[in-house]
């Protein structure tokens, strides 16, 4: 059954263009190359016998970090990996246990990099004579396998739970926010010094044998004070995770996602926001205004967009807050440009749901832009303007959140954040437009998160993000070097002028590609999926 499923999925994906396949390959090589390097470093550290005390002290914390990353990274990146499309599979007489097993295996798609890291640690510890060396040939790998299995199963359970919770409007945003805050809470507490001493007492407790990471570390380092209790505890945690994941999976099987997502536009929503949606028409002519209006309405009703938007001003803020608070003492760049940094981070996050794949949510309906008597450049421009409105709304939301948190951001810095984000957006919109027509892919509006294949254009943007940020970065560098606001603004003006030129050129290429590749774009956007959901 598993082979049949995987084959069907492979057959569904085989028609992706050669160029897309190559891009995926390059991005995967870069990503996993980085993790392989990290794994090699971890191996060398773990293999050094003089680091024995260090390893004993820090291994539980390291494993805790791996667990946290394993569970939270897919949510933070908005890409939850592949999963079974149960609507397509439930009609077949397949045992539920088999479906659950495939679902578990699919969790590997989200955090394969951690398996690399764990492999590095395992080999390192096996090479280290302080930990029984090759004498632990069975024990250490078994501990790592149990630890990985625990994380894999827990991730499957959490995913099922989240998938159900995230179908409900409002709850979805709150849950997402809480989980993200939970993820960055330890770092925030450490940097702010809030309960610093208490935290110092808490960390050894986290390394305790009762926790899966503590148990795994004890089991791995047996000769230096560990006991076989660690193995028993780890098995216990894995079993608990299994029952939790299985329970959640069964609940998902019975859950009516369609009914939960059934939505109408409330009368209140219509009367209040309708006027807002119509504002662009006051300044812009049709059809651009019509497209902007349509985009804004669609965004506001798309769970996935709302999730990312909320992440932009919540997760983004909390992620950078510790660095900013530390910077108040060390006077680092993040501290003095906090709002700008968070805004640029949000700008990157928004790419996946707005400008990075502009026609994704339209799916096959994107053909309307080719059928209607308009130039495709108007359609792209309309979509870019809608994205720009969203970006400015995000910066405003971040500024508002800062003022609620009493972060004391001067008015000048707010203006600066808007200006810098706008200039950076010019470059990123250029990249996004090219990516939208060259790597178009359908996206599900209903699903609150993306999945594996979304990483291609995200990866591309990640790769080009530093290059796109370079002109803005140079402006900041000029301010630092010359200690002059005038120089800074002059450099920003230059970056803006260059950005407009880049945007203009990219638009021409986008339009050419949009016409030249129209058949391929529409085929990609209308494409169906295999038995796995991967939008």
């Amino acid at each position, binding site marked *: 059954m598993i082979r049949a499923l995987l084959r069907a999925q492979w057959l569904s994906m085989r028609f992706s263009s050669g160029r897309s396949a190559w891009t995926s390959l390059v991005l995967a090589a870069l990503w996993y190359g980085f993790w392989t390097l990290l794994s090699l470093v971890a191996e060398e550290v773990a293999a050094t016998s003089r680091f024995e005390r260090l390893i004993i002290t820090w291994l539980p914390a390291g494993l805790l970090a791996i667990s946290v990353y394993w569970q939270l990274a897919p949510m933070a990146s908005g890409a939850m990996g592949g999963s079974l499309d149960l609507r397509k599979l439930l009609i077949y007489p397949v045992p539920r246990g088999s479906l659950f097993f495939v679902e578990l295996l699919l969790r590997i798609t989200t955090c394969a990099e951690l398996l690399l890291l764990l492999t590095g640690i395992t080999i390192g510890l096996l090479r280290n004579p302080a930990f029984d060396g090759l004498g632990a040939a069975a024990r250490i790998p078994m501990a790592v396998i149990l630890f990985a299995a625990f994380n894999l199963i827990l991730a499957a359970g959490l995913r099922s739970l989240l998938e159900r919770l995230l179908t409900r409007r409002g709850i979805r945003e709150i849950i997402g926010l809480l989980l993200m805050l939970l993820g960055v809470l330890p770092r925030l507490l450490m940097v702010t010094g809030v309960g610093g001493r208490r935290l110092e007492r808490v960390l050894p407790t986290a390394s305790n044998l009762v926790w899966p990471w503590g148990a795994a570390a004890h089991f791995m380092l047996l000769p230096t004070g560990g006991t076989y209790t660690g193995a028993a505890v780890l098995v216990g945690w894995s079993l608990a995770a299994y029952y939790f994941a299985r329970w959640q999976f069964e609940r998902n099987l019975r859950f009516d996602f369609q009914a939960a997502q059934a939505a109408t536009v409330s009368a209140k929503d219509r009367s209040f926001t309708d006027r807002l949606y119509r504002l662009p028409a006051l300044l812009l002519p049709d059809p651009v205004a019509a497209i902007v*209006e*349509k985009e804004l309405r669609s965004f506001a009703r798309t769970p996935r967009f709302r999730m990312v938007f909320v992440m932009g001003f919540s997760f983004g803020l909390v992620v950078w807050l510790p660095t900013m608070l530390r910077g108040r003492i060390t006077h680092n760049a993040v501290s003095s440009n906090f709002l700008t940094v968070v805004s640029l981070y949000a700008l990157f996050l928004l790419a996946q749901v707005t400008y990075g794949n502009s026609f994704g949510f339209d799916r096959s*309906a994107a053909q309307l832009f080719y059928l209607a*008597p*308009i130039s495709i450049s108007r359609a792209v421009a309309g979509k870019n303007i809608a994205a720009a409105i969203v970006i400015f709304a995000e910066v405003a939301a971040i500024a508002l959140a800062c003022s609620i948190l009493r972060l004391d951001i001067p008015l000048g810095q707010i203006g600066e954040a808007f200006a810098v984000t706008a200039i950076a957006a010019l470059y990123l919109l250029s990249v996004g437009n090219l990516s939208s027509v060259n790597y178009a892919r359908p996206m599900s509006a209903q699903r609150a998160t993306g999945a594996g294949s979304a990483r291609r254009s995200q990866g591309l943007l990640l790769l080009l993000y530093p290059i796109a940020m370079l002109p803005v970065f140079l402006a900041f560098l000029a301010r630092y070097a010359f200690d002059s606001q005038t120089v800074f603004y002059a450099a920003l003006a230059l970056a803006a002028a260059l950005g407009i030129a880049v945007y203009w050129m990219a638009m021409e290429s986008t339009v050419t590609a949009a016409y030249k590749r129209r058949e391929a774009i529409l085929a990609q956007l209308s494409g169906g999926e295999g038995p796995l959901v991967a939008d």
Partner: protein
Amino acid sequence: MADSPAIAIHNLRKVYGAKAAVDGVDLIVPRGCFFGFLGPNGAGKSTTIRMLTGLIPPTSGSIEILGMPLAERELEIKRRIGLVPDESLLFDRLTGAEFLEFVGRMYGLARPMAIERALSLLDLFELREKRKMIAEYSKGMRKRLAMAASLIHHPDLFLMDEPFEGVDAVGARLMKDILLDQVRRGATIFLTSHVLEVVERLCDHAAIIDNGRIVREGSMDELRGGTDSLEDVFVRVVGAGHEFHELEWLK
């Protein structure tokens, strides 16, 4: 230009790799006629319609619509075409009214007029749940909305790919009445359908395409050639040689 046919296709070809999906089609569709474009699955119907709308470029050949060459005057032609494609062109996160207004504005209608027409079309097509998002529409409702969208700019030519697919009998009757009314006012309808009874009842002209080539063409009477039904003609023309073989293990 007013005397020119609604559609004039000359030696149209579309080749994918080594396979010609449309292979030298010549076709004239007179103005004001209800034209049925028939063919078995994969015969080249949808590819032809996609070329007529400019969605895909032909490999060779020429297309004239309403007397204008498609390649040179694409935007002008698009303004006068109403389309119901086989694949959804509906934006799921809009309501029916919002979508119709959007389409109207894309075709150059002023917003107040687009809103007014959208609301009257929703009434006409009995899509009265105005706050329902399109994502929640049934298949039949989606087809009715797509047809409403094709009407909003009052086009002269309709290109319709399986417009009645998934529509219930009441909805289909409503749609047929509206289409017949459009023909009476002088519009041309170019329609593909697998339901031959529908084509036989509605269309005055038809062509049958098979393996990318037109194999029969003419008025409905000419096609039927006297007493045959359209289904008999269709099966004879494109289904010759198909025999039913019972599978042993299915007995």
